Protein backbone atom coordinates (compact mmCIF):
# COMPACT_ATOMS: atom_id res chain seq x y z
CA UNK A 1 0.00 0.00 0.00
CA UNK A 2 0.95 3.58 -0.63
CA UNK A 3 1.89 6.25 1.92
CA UNK A 4 -0.32 7.10 4.85
CA UNK A 5 -1.37 10.71 4.30
CA UNK A 6 -3.32 11.09 7.54
CA UNK A 7 -1.73 13.35 10.13
CA UNK A 8 -2.92 13.36 13.73
CA UNK A 9 -3.09 17.14 13.98
CA UNK A 10 -2.32 20.43 12.25
CA UNK A 11 0.90 20.99 14.21
CA UNK A 12 2.44 17.77 12.90
CA UNK A 13 1.23 18.50 9.36
CA UNK A 14 3.09 21.83 9.12
CA UNK A 15 6.12 20.91 11.24
CA UNK A 16 8.61 20.94 8.35
CA UNK A 17 7.65 24.29 6.79
CA UNK A 18 11.04 25.97 6.42
CA UNK A 19 12.21 29.57 6.63
CA UNK A 20 11.93 31.22 3.22
CA UNK A 21 9.24 28.84 1.97
CA UNK A 22 6.51 29.94 -0.42
CA UNK A 23 3.09 29.13 1.02
CA UNK A 24 -0.25 29.23 -0.76
CA UNK A 25 -3.20 29.71 1.57
CA UNK A 26 -6.53 28.61 0.17
CA UNK A 27 -9.99 30.06 0.60
CA UNK A 28 -11.25 33.39 -0.64
CA UNK A 29 -9.87 35.32 2.31
CA UNK A 30 -12.62 35.29 4.89
CA UNK A 31 -13.91 32.44 7.07
CA UNK A 32 -15.38 30.02 4.53
CA UNK A 33 -12.70 27.98 2.80
CA UNK A 34 -9.85 29.26 4.94
CA UNK A 35 -7.61 26.53 6.46
CA UNK A 36 -7.79 28.10 9.89
CA UNK A 37 -6.32 25.22 11.89
CA UNK A 38 -3.33 24.96 9.58
CA UNK A 39 -2.78 28.72 9.70
CA UNK A 40 -2.81 28.73 13.49
CA UNK A 41 -0.41 25.77 13.52
CA UNK A 42 1.94 27.59 11.15
CA UNK A 43 1.83 30.67 13.37
CA UNK A 44 2.84 28.46 16.30
CA UNK A 45 5.48 26.61 14.30
CA UNK A 46 7.17 29.93 13.61
CA UNK A 47 8.75 29.60 10.15
CA UNK A 48 10.01 32.99 8.96
CA UNK A 49 10.72 34.91 5.74
CA UNK A 50 7.69 33.29 4.15
CA UNK A 51 6.22 34.32 0.83
CA UNK A 52 2.47 34.04 1.22
CA UNK A 53 0.21 33.68 -1.81
CA UNK A 54 -3.47 34.14 -0.98
CA UNK A 55 -6.43 35.95 -2.47
CA UNK A 56 -6.73 38.34 0.50
CA UNK A 57 -4.24 39.42 3.12
CA UNK A 58 -6.48 38.47 6.02
CA UNK A 59 -8.07 41.06 8.28
CA UNK A 60 -6.72 39.75 11.59
CA UNK A 61 -8.67 38.56 14.62
CA UNK A 62 -9.80 42.05 15.73
CA UNK A 63 -11.47 43.07 12.46
CA UNK A 64 -12.76 39.56 11.67
CA UNK A 65 -15.92 40.02 13.72
CA UNK A 66 -17.00 42.59 11.12
CA UNK A 67 -17.14 39.70 8.66
CA UNK A 68 -18.48 36.94 10.92
CA UNK A 69 -20.02 37.52 14.34
CA UNK A 70 -17.66 36.30 17.05
CA UNK A 71 -14.66 36.60 14.77
CA UNK A 72 -12.09 34.00 13.79
CA UNK A 73 -8.37 33.66 13.31
CA UNK A 74 -7.06 34.18 9.78
CA UNK A 75 -3.65 34.50 8.11
CA UNK A 76 -3.39 38.03 9.50
CA UNK A 77 -1.66 36.32 12.41
CA UNK A 78 1.30 35.40 10.18
CA UNK A 79 1.83 39.09 9.37
CA UNK A 80 1.29 40.09 12.99
CA UNK A 81 3.99 37.60 14.00
CA UNK A 82 6.38 39.04 11.43
CA UNK A 83 6.70 35.66 9.69
CA UNK A 84 6.05 37.00 6.19
CA UNK A 85 8.59 38.60 3.86
CA UNK A 86 6.32 39.00 0.85
CA UNK A 87 2.62 38.84 0.06
CA UNK A 88 1.15 38.04 -3.36
CA UNK A 89 -2.60 38.41 -3.74
CA UNK A 90 -5.51 40.39 -5.11
CA UNK A 91 -6.80 42.08 -1.94
CA UNK A 92 -3.97 42.66 0.55
CA UNK A 93 -6.35 44.86 2.56
CA UNK A 94 -10.03 45.72 2.27
CA UNK A 95 -10.82 49.34 1.39
CA UNK A 96 -14.07 49.08 3.33
CA UNK A 97 -12.26 48.27 6.60
CA UNK A 98 -10.09 50.51 8.76
CA UNK A 99 -6.38 50.40 7.86
CA UNK A 100 -5.54 48.31 10.90
CA UNK A 101 -5.22 44.82 9.47
CA UNK A 102 -1.85 43.24 10.35
CA UNK A 103 -0.71 43.25 6.71
CA UNK A 104 -1.72 46.86 6.06
CA UNK A 105 0.04 48.04 9.22
CA UNK A 106 3.19 46.14 8.27
CA UNK A 107 3.01 47.49 4.72
CA UNK A 108 2.64 51.05 5.90
CA UNK A 109 5.72 50.55 8.07
CA UNK A 110 7.60 49.32 5.01
CA UNK A 111 8.15 45.92 6.58
CA UNK A 112 6.61 43.65 3.96
CA UNK A 113 6.91 43.34 0.19
CA UNK A 114 3.69 43.19 -1.75
CA UNK A 115 2.66 42.11 -5.25
CA UNK A 116 -0.94 42.95 -6.02
CA UNK A 117 -2.46 40.81 -8.77
CA UNK A 118 -5.93 40.91 -10.32
CA UNK A 119 -7.95 38.05 -8.87
CA UNK A 120 -8.55 36.27 -12.17
CA UNK A 121 -4.88 36.62 -13.03
CA UNK A 122 -4.00 35.20 -9.61
CA UNK A 123 -6.21 32.15 -10.21
CA UNK A 124 -4.81 31.68 -13.70
CA UNK A 125 -1.16 32.12 -12.66
CA UNK A 126 -1.67 29.38 -10.09
CA UNK A 127 -3.43 27.14 -12.60
CA UNK A 128 -0.66 27.89 -15.09
CA UNK A 129 1.94 26.76 -12.58
CA UNK A 130 -0.13 23.70 -11.74
CA UNK A 131 -0.43 22.81 -15.42
CA UNK A 132 3.30 23.05 -16.14
CA UNK A 133 2.80 25.96 -18.54
CA UNK A 134 5.19 28.86 -18.92
CA UNK A 135 2.85 31.83 -18.80
CA UNK A 136 -0.17 33.38 -20.52
CA UNK A 137 -1.61 36.59 -21.90
CA UNK A 138 -4.58 38.34 -20.32
CA UNK A 139 -6.41 41.62 -20.89
CA UNK A 140 -7.00 42.20 -17.17
CA UNK A 141 -4.84 45.10 -16.09
CA UNK A 142 -4.11 46.58 -19.52
CA UNK A 143 -3.54 50.32 -19.20
CA UNK A 144 -3.19 50.11 -15.40
CA UNK A 145 -0.39 49.87 -12.86
CA UNK A 146 -0.60 46.08 -13.20
CA UNK A 147 0.90 46.31 -16.69
CA UNK A 148 3.99 48.13 -15.43
CA UNK A 149 7.21 46.45 -16.45
CA UNK A 150 5.35 43.58 -18.13
CA UNK A 151 5.60 42.48 -21.72
CA UNK A 152 2.50 43.27 -23.77
CA UNK A 153 1.34 41.74 -27.02
CA UNK A 154 -1.34 42.60 -29.56
CA UNK A 155 -3.34 39.45 -30.30
CA UNK A 156 -6.23 39.66 -32.77
CA UNK A 157 -6.11 43.44 -32.49
CA UNK A 158 -6.39 43.57 -28.70
CA UNK A 159 -3.70 44.33 -26.15
CA UNK A 160 -2.74 41.65 -23.63
CA UNK A 161 -0.29 41.48 -20.71
CA UNK A 162 2.09 38.59 -20.18
CA UNK A 163 1.79 36.89 -16.81
CA UNK A 164 4.01 34.22 -15.28
CA UNK A 165 3.03 31.04 -13.41
CA UNK A 166 3.00 30.78 -9.62
CA UNK A 167 4.18 27.77 -7.60
CA UNK A 168 4.52 27.03 -3.92
CA UNK A 169 6.51 24.81 -1.62
CA UNK A 170 3.41 24.23 0.49
CA UNK A 171 -0.29 24.81 -0.07
CA UNK A 172 -2.49 24.98 3.01
CA UNK A 173 -6.04 24.32 1.93
CA UNK A 174 -9.48 23.58 3.32
CA UNK A 175 -11.84 20.95 1.96
CA UNK A 176 -15.07 19.47 3.23
CA UNK A 177 -14.23 15.77 3.02
CA UNK A 178 -11.18 13.74 2.11
CA UNK A 179 -11.00 10.01 1.61
CA UNK A 180 -7.90 8.36 3.03
CA UNK A 181 -6.24 8.39 -0.39
CA UNK A 182 -6.55 12.17 -0.49
CA UNK A 183 -9.43 12.70 -2.91
CA UNK A 184 -11.25 15.89 -1.95
CA UNK A 185 -14.69 17.44 -2.15
CA UNK A 186 -15.52 20.96 -1.04
CA UNK A 187 -18.61 22.69 0.32
CA UNK A 188 -20.34 25.60 -1.47
CA UNK A 189 -18.23 28.74 -1.89
CA UNK A 190 -15.59 27.32 0.44
CA UNK A 191 -14.25 25.74 -2.78
CA UNK A 192 -12.92 29.00 -4.36
CA UNK A 193 -9.10 29.05 -4.51
CA UNK A 194 -8.60 25.70 -2.76
CA UNK A 195 -8.66 23.36 -5.78
CA UNK A 196 -6.31 25.48 -7.91
CA UNK A 197 -3.82 25.94 -5.09
CA UNK A 198 -3.93 22.23 -4.25
CA UNK A 199 -2.56 21.56 -7.73
CA UNK A 200 0.32 24.05 -7.66
CA UNK A 201 2.36 23.10 -4.60
CA UNK A 202 5.11 20.57 -3.99
CA UNK A 203 3.40 19.62 -0.72
CA UNK A 204 -0.34 20.16 -0.34
CA UNK A 205 -1.70 19.99 3.20
CA UNK A 206 -5.46 19.91 3.61
CA UNK A 207 -7.67 20.36 6.64
CA UNK A 208 -11.06 18.74 6.30
CA UNK A 209 -14.27 18.53 8.26
CA UNK A 210 -14.30 14.76 7.83
CA UNK A 211 -12.12 11.91 6.61
CA UNK A 212 -14.06 9.08 4.97
CA UNK A 213 -13.02 5.61 3.75
CA UNK A 214 -11.89 5.15 0.16
CA UNK A 215 -14.88 4.53 -2.08
CA UNK A 216 -17.25 6.82 -0.18
CA UNK A 217 -16.80 9.82 -2.47
CA UNK A 218 -18.62 9.83 -5.82
CA UNK A 219 -15.91 9.47 -8.53
CA UNK A 220 -17.90 11.93 -10.69
CA UNK A 221 -17.94 14.57 -7.94
CA UNK A 222 -14.35 14.43 -6.69
CA UNK A 223 -12.94 17.90 -7.33
CA UNK A 224 -9.32 17.35 -6.33
CA UNK A 225 -7.92 13.93 -7.30
CA UNK A 226 -5.59 12.38 -4.72
CA UNK A 227 -2.34 12.89 -6.64
CA UNK A 228 -2.51 16.52 -5.55
CA UNK A 229 -2.88 15.87 -1.83
CA UNK A 230 0.04 14.94 0.43
CA UNK A 231 -1.17 15.44 4.00
CA UNK A 232 -4.64 15.31 5.52
CA UNK A 233 -5.74 16.61 8.90
CA UNK A 234 -9.27 16.17 10.21
CA UNK A 235 -9.92 19.35 12.15
CA UNK A 236 -13.21 20.66 13.47
CA UNK A 237 -13.71 24.41 13.65
Amino acid at each position, binding site marked *: MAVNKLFPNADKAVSDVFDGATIMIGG*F*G*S*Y*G*GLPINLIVALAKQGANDLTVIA*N*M*GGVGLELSSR*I*KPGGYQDHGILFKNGQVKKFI*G*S*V*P*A*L*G*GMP*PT*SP*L*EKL*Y*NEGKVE*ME*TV*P*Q*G*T*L*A*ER*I*RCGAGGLGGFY*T*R*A*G*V*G*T*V*VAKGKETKIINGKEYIFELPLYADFALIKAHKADTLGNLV*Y*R*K*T*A*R*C*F*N*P*VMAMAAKTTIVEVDEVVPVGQLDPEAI*ITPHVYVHRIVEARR
Partner: protein
Amino acid sequence: MKSRLDEQTIALRAAREFADGAVVNLGYGMPGLCANFIPEGRTVYFQSENGMLGYGSLAADAEKDYEMINASDQPVTPLPGMSFFDSGIAFDMIRGGHIDVVVLGAYQVSENGDLANWGRPGRGATGMGGGMDLAVGAKRVIVTMLHTTKEGEPRIVKNCTYPLTARQCVNLIITDLAVIEVAERGLILKETAPGWTAPEIQDLTEAKLTPDKDLKEIEL
Protein backbone atom coordinates in the same frame (compact mmCIF):
# COMPACT_ATOMS: atom_id res chain seq x y z
CA MET B 1 -38.24 68.42 -2.35
CA LYS B 2 -34.58 67.65 -3.02
CA SER B 3 -33.25 64.28 -1.89
CA ARG B 4 -30.31 61.98 -2.46
CA LEU B 5 -30.90 58.29 -3.03
CA ASP B 6 -29.72 55.99 -0.27
CA GLU B 7 -27.64 52.87 -0.99
CA GLN B 8 -30.66 50.57 -1.08
CA THR B 9 -32.36 52.80 -3.63
CA ILE B 10 -29.26 53.06 -5.80
CA ALA B 11 -29.11 49.25 -5.77
CA LEU B 12 -32.80 49.05 -6.63
CA ARG B 13 -32.30 51.39 -9.59
CA ALA B 14 -29.29 49.40 -10.77
CA ALA B 15 -31.23 46.14 -10.58
CA ARG B 16 -33.79 47.57 -13.05
CA GLU B 17 -31.07 47.25 -15.68
CA PHE B 18 -31.03 43.45 -15.38
CA ALA B 19 -32.83 41.91 -18.36
CA ASP B 20 -34.80 38.72 -17.97
CA GLY B 21 -32.37 35.80 -18.05
CA ALA B 22 -29.30 37.98 -17.51
CA VAL B 23 -26.15 36.66 -15.84
CA VAL B 24 -25.06 39.31 -13.36
CA ASN B 25 -22.00 39.74 -11.17
CA LEU B 26 -22.19 42.08 -8.18
CA GLY B 27 -19.01 43.78 -7.02
CA TYR B 28 -17.80 44.44 -3.51
CA GLY B 29 -19.98 46.55 -1.21
CA MET B 30 -23.09 48.42 -2.35
CA PRO B 31 -23.58 46.38 -5.56
CA GLY B 32 -24.15 43.28 -3.42
CA LEU B 33 -27.49 44.75 -2.36
CA CYS B 34 -28.85 44.41 -5.91
CA ALA B 35 -29.51 40.72 -5.18
CA ASN B 36 -32.47 41.86 -3.09
CA PHE B 37 -34.11 43.93 -5.84
CA ILE B 38 -34.67 41.77 -8.89
CA PRO B 39 -37.56 43.27 -10.86
CA GLU B 40 -40.84 41.38 -10.62
CA GLY B 41 -41.27 38.69 -13.27
CA ARG B 42 -37.63 38.53 -14.27
CA THR B 43 -35.14 35.74 -13.65
CA VAL B 44 -31.58 36.83 -13.03
CA TYR B 45 -28.61 34.50 -12.50
CA PHE B 46 -26.11 35.96 -10.08
CA GLN B 47 -22.53 34.85 -10.59
CA SER B 48 -19.94 35.35 -7.90
CA GLU B 49 -16.20 35.24 -8.59
CA ASN B 50 -15.59 33.03 -5.58
CA GLY B 51 -17.25 30.27 -7.57
CA MET B 52 -21.03 30.30 -7.58
CA LEU B 53 -23.78 30.75 -10.15
CA GLY B 54 -27.48 31.23 -9.49
CA TYR B 55 -27.70 32.27 -5.84
CA GLY B 56 -30.64 34.12 -4.32
CA SER B 57 -31.02 37.12 -2.04
CA LEU B 58 -28.84 38.02 0.92
CA ALA B 59 -29.40 35.60 3.79
CA ALA B 60 -31.33 36.64 6.88
CA ASP B 61 -29.48 36.25 10.18
CA ALA B 62 -31.09 32.93 11.04
CA GLU B 63 -30.02 31.24 7.81
CA LYS B 64 -26.48 32.59 7.42
CA ASP B 65 -23.99 30.00 6.14
CA TYR B 66 -20.47 31.41 6.07
CA GLU B 67 -19.47 28.80 3.54
CA MET B 68 -21.95 30.31 1.12
CA ILE B 69 -20.97 33.91 0.63
CA ASN B 70 -20.95 36.41 -2.20
CA ALA B 71 -17.75 38.23 -3.14
CA SER B 72 -18.50 40.80 -0.43
CA ASP B 73 -18.29 38.11 2.28
CA GLN B 74 -22.06 38.24 2.81
CA PRO B 75 -23.95 34.96 3.22
CA VAL B 76 -26.54 34.44 0.47
CA THR B 77 -29.38 31.98 -0.02
CA PRO B 78 -29.48 28.95 -2.35
CA LEU B 79 -31.78 28.58 -5.36
CA PRO B 80 -32.62 25.50 -7.46
CA GLY B 81 -30.28 25.16 -10.44
CA MET B 82 -27.33 26.84 -8.77
CA SER B 83 -23.81 25.49 -9.05
CA PHE B 84 -20.42 25.83 -7.39
CA PHE B 85 -17.01 25.87 -9.06
CA ASP B 86 -13.45 26.98 -8.34
CA SER B 87 -11.90 30.42 -8.78
CA GLY B 88 -10.18 29.40 -12.01
CA ILE B 89 -13.47 28.49 -13.66
CA ALA B 90 -15.19 31.53 -12.13
CA PHE B 91 -12.78 33.79 -13.99
CA ASP B 92 -12.92 31.76 -17.20
CA MET B 93 -16.61 32.58 -17.11
CA ILE B 94 -15.90 36.26 -16.44
CA ARG B 95 -13.11 36.86 -18.96
CA GLY B 96 -14.77 34.52 -21.45
CA GLY B 97 -17.69 36.90 -21.88
CA HIS B 98 -20.47 35.08 -20.05
CA ILE B 99 -21.34 37.89 -17.66
CA ASP B 100 -24.06 40.08 -19.17
CA VAL B 101 -23.83 42.79 -16.52
CA VAL B 102 -21.41 43.58 -13.74
CA VAL B 103 -22.23 46.17 -11.10
CA LEU B 104 -19.11 47.68 -9.55
CA GLY B 105 -18.44 50.30 -6.92
CA ALA B 106 -16.08 53.14 -7.83
CA TYR B 107 -13.94 55.91 -6.43
CA GLN B 108 -13.87 57.73 -9.78
CA VAL B 109 -15.20 57.39 -13.30
CA SER B 110 -13.80 59.53 -16.11
CA GLU B 111 -15.72 61.11 -18.96
CA ASN B 112 -14.56 58.42 -21.37
CA GLY B 113 -15.57 55.62 -19.02
CA ASP B 114 -12.25 54.90 -17.31
CA LEU B 115 -12.84 53.27 -13.95
CA ALA B 116 -10.88 53.69 -10.70
CA ASN B 117 -12.35 51.52 -7.97
CA TRP B 118 -9.65 49.90 -5.86
CA GLY B 119 -7.03 52.29 -4.56
CA ARG B 120 -7.05 55.65 -2.87
CA PRO B 121 -4.49 57.96 -1.32
CA GLY B 122 -3.14 56.69 1.98
CA ARG B 123 -4.38 53.15 1.43
CA GLY B 124 -1.54 51.57 -0.52
CA ALA B 125 -2.43 48.06 0.56
CA THR B 126 -5.95 47.78 -0.84
CA GLY B 127 -6.25 45.61 -3.93
CA MET B 128 -8.28 45.34 -7.11
CA GLY B 129 -9.78 41.93 -6.34
CA GLY B 130 -11.67 40.71 -9.37
CA GLY B 131 -12.51 44.18 -10.64
CA MET B 132 -10.00 44.31 -13.47
CA ASP B 133 -11.14 40.96 -14.84
CA LEU B 134 -14.80 41.90 -14.51
CA ALA B 135 -14.27 45.30 -16.14
CA VAL B 136 -12.66 43.78 -19.24
CA GLY B 137 -14.77 40.62 -19.35
CA ALA B 138 -18.37 41.65 -18.70
CA LYS B 139 -20.55 42.72 -21.61
CA ARG B 140 -21.89 45.71 -19.69
CA VAL B 141 -20.36 47.57 -16.75
CA ILE B 142 -22.64 49.51 -14.41
CA VAL B 143 -21.07 51.62 -11.68
CA THR B 144 -22.97 52.43 -8.50
CA MET B 145 -21.42 55.06 -6.25
CA LEU B 146 -21.99 58.28 -4.34
CA HIS B 147 -21.81 61.28 -6.66
CA THR B 148 -19.22 63.07 -4.55
CA THR B 149 -16.67 62.25 -1.85
CA LYS B 150 -17.39 62.95 1.81
CA GLU B 151 -15.58 66.24 1.27
CA GLY B 152 -17.86 67.09 -1.64
CA GLU B 153 -15.28 66.48 -4.37
CA PRO B 154 -16.68 65.17 -7.66
CA ARG B 155 -16.15 61.48 -8.40
CA ILE B 156 -17.14 61.82 -12.05
CA VAL B 157 -14.05 63.48 -13.44
CA LYS B 158 -12.27 64.46 -16.65
CA ASN B 159 -9.42 62.08 -15.91
CA CYS B 160 -9.12 59.62 -13.05
CA THR B 161 -6.43 60.54 -10.55
CA TYR B 162 -6.83 57.35 -8.53
CA PRO B 163 -5.30 54.10 -9.82
CA LEU B 164 -7.24 52.69 -12.76
CA THR B 165 -9.18 49.43 -12.85
CA ALA B 166 -9.64 49.48 -16.63
CA ARG B 167 -9.87 52.05 -19.40
CA GLN B 168 -13.11 52.91 -21.24
CA CYS B 169 -15.07 50.12 -19.65
CA VAL B 170 -18.02 51.82 -17.91
CA ASN B 171 -21.38 51.89 -19.69
CA LEU B 172 -23.69 53.35 -17.04
CA ILE B 173 -23.17 55.29 -13.80
CA ILE B 174 -25.83 55.29 -11.10
CA THR B 175 -25.22 57.66 -8.18
CA ASP B 176 -27.26 59.10 -5.35
CA LEU B 177 -27.97 62.04 -7.69
CA ALA B 178 -28.16 60.78 -11.23
CA VAL B 179 -28.17 58.08 -13.86
CA ILE B 180 -25.53 58.81 -16.48
CA GLU B 181 -24.78 56.93 -19.68
CA VAL B 182 -21.23 56.77 -21.02
CA ALA B 183 -21.71 57.28 -24.76
CA GLU B 184 -19.39 57.78 -27.71
CA ARG B 185 -20.10 61.52 -27.55
CA GLY B 186 -19.49 61.78 -23.79
CA LEU B 187 -21.55 61.54 -20.61
CA ILE B 188 -25.31 61.72 -21.08
CA LEU B 189 -27.39 62.71 -18.05
CA LYS B 190 -30.43 60.44 -18.32
CA GLU B 191 -32.13 60.72 -14.94
CA THR B 192 -31.90 62.96 -11.91
CA ALA B 193 -32.66 62.33 -8.26
CA PRO B 194 -35.99 63.85 -7.13
CA GLY B 195 -35.85 67.63 -7.03
CA TRP B 196 -32.41 68.00 -8.63
CA THR B 197 -31.82 69.98 -11.83
CA ALA B 198 -29.24 69.23 -14.50
CA PRO B 199 -27.17 72.36 -13.68
CA GLU B 200 -27.13 71.46 -9.97
CA ILE B 201 -25.80 68.00 -10.82
CA GLN B 202 -23.29 69.44 -13.29
CA ASP B 203 -21.98 71.65 -10.45
CA LEU B 204 -21.05 68.50 -8.52
CA THR B 205 -19.50 66.84 -11.57
CA GLU B 206 -16.08 67.64 -13.00
CA ALA B 207 -16.71 66.01 -16.37
CA LYS B 208 -19.15 67.61 -18.76
CA LEU B 209 -22.67 66.15 -18.68
CA THR B 210 -25.00 66.44 -21.66
CA PRO B 211 -28.64 66.33 -20.55
CA ASP B 212 -30.55 63.73 -22.52
CA LYS B 213 -33.42 64.93 -24.66
CA ASP B 214 -35.64 62.67 -22.55
CA LEU B 215 -34.08 63.70 -19.23
CA LYS B 216 -36.38 62.74 -16.38
CA GLU B 217 -36.54 62.18 -12.67
CA ILE B 218 -35.56 58.70 -11.50
CA GLU B 219 -38.78 56.75 -11.12
CA LEU B 220 -38.73 54.32 -8.22
